[in-house]
């Protein structure tokens, strides 16, 4: 049973090299996996660019971004992104009008006015809404919202920027609510009590102290919701009618960047010009969401530092 130290040292020394080698292998694998996300993100950017190169060379990025017409299969072919970009922005704008006030209002109520059990209930509700696939939102929009929009506004078609935007707004709510609620929750109670002790009411405390303190987190939530709305594909594809014309109001049909890629990628010749143009659309989309997400992340990081200790 008992071992002399020298025996022990001898036994251990023999195991050391093998064990160190194994440990080094595992560490290498784990570091590789850790760095994988950088590699993938870079690869996405690189391959979007590689595939878009043909269209950038033959049509020109400037021309694509500024042309007002999208006729990918006409003669002559015209690849103007403006209708698509404006379509995306209009749908997203409608979504923003829906999810910003409702999302922030709901987050304030959940965080400041409600009891613990209600928070749990709302957590499940929000998890459910986040779990429903976008194609289901699209289908529900087709079944419920399109006829409603058509009848209510007396339109010839219910497939409009408004329809897509309303559904996108609902889809973005879980993101906005959960991140804003986190931000409100992170505000130290001492601040609330300090304000209440000065004779402020709950609401005065909320809008003078709590919301301003949480503003950066709420802003990040809105940005992430915005990113999700711009990048959303299936629901807008199913709901906006996909007319590639620059819209003048929200009751018209629009074609978004995401919808264009999804609808047309099935019909292009791989490696051809149209294929490459769709990658240019993807590149623009990637660029926009990248900037939005980066901004949101930097804001969130600053907030995290602020409340540390």
């Amino acid at each position, binding site marked *: *049973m008992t071992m002399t130290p*020298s025996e*022990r040292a001898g036994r*251990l020394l023999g195991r050391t090299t093998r064990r*160190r080698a194994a440990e080094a292998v595992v560490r290498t694998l784990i570091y590789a996996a850790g760095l994988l996300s950088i590699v993938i993100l870079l690869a996405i950017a690189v391959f979007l660019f590689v595939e878009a190169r043909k269209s950038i060379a033959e049509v020109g990025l400037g021309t694509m971004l500024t042309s007002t017409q999208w006729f990918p299969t006409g003669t002559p072919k015209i690849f103007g992104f403006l209708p698509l970009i404006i379509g995306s922005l209009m749908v997203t704008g409608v979504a923003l009008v829906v999810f910003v006030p409702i999302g922030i209002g709901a987050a304030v109520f959940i965080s400041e006015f409600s009891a613990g059990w209600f928070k749990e209930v709302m957590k499940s509700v929000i998890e459910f809404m986040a779990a429903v696939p976008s194609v289901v939102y699209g289908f529900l929009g087709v079944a419920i919202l399109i006829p409603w929009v058509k009848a209510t506004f007396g339109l010839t078609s219910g497939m409009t920027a408004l329809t897509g935007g309303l559904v996108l707004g609902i889809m973005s709510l879980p993101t906005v609510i959960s991140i804003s609620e986190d931000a409100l929750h992170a505000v130290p109670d001492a601040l609330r009590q300090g304000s209440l002790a000065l004779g402020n009411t709950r609401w005065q405390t909320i809008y003078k102290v709590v919301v301003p303190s949480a503003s950066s987190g709420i802003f990040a939530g809105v940005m992430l919701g915005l990113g999700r709305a711009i990048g959303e594909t299936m629901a807008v594809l199913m709901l906006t009618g996909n007319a590639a014309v620059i819209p003048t109001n929200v009751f018209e049909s629009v074609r978004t960047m995401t919808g264009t890629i999804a609808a047309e990628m099935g019909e292009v010749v791989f490696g051809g010009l149209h294929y490459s143009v769709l990658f240019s659309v993807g590149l623009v989309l990637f660029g926009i969401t990248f900037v939005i997400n980066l901004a949101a992340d930097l804001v969130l990081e600053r907030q995290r530092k602020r409340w540390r200790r």
Partner: protein
Amino acid sequence: MVMSAVLEEVTAEAPFALSEPVRVDADRAEKVSGSFSLKDVSVAYGNETVIAGVNMLVPSRAVTALIGPSGCGKSTLLRCLNRMNDEIGNVRVGGTIALDGLDIYQKSIDPVDLRMRVGQVFQRPNPFPMSIYDNVAFGPRTQGVRKRDELDAIIEAALKDAALWDEVKNHLKKHAFELSGGQQQRLCIARALATKPEVLLMDEPASALDPISTQQIEDTIAELKDMVTIVIVTHNMQQAARISDQTAFMLRESMDQPAHLVEVGETKRMFTNPDDKRTESYITGRFG
């Protein structure tokens, strides 16, 4: 002056010279296994030196208590002995710490090997979220013991040594979290003993426990000192006086200067007739 006198006295008893080449001398190591010698040990976090100039011997098969006010670096010093400070990063240890003559900070030493020989029991009981049996078996399994009967024997022995066997022998499959706090801490002692260490480091092992559990832990320590060298950090002066053979008093006199060892010596003498005024006031202050 007083300090250096104490040091001379202690170094005179040193069973080996600190300047000897750092290799295991088998014959000698067997006789004195589990003794530490610390020579001019310092610890720095980044640029801040928190401990400096510690010279002491930790005799084999005896209990050495580290005492001193909180924040004086007792735990930090303790964690140097099994190189747990390595895990924090940005910590530098200077001077020489030798286990049975072997410099534990030399390049060829893997801290993992060292920790099989120098076990540790923490301030809060921290059993793993698994069965009692698996908790104690963790160390032996790490060392490559696979045979069931061999494991059973080690576990029984360790639990007996930690005075927990009678309470749990029929419930070895029970989840460790179902034990009481005191039982959990004795389980942690058993877990550390199962690796058959030569030294057991204890960082305020009873500070989170009730008086009865504390008593049981102290009894266990008294039983164990024939088997392993024990170094214990404690805030409790009575505890140090009751259980230790040697006591070392550390002090950080201001935040601008590192902590140092004020006095080290036989516990009985330290508590009745300390050489240093600061030791005396600390001990009496704590007793009073």
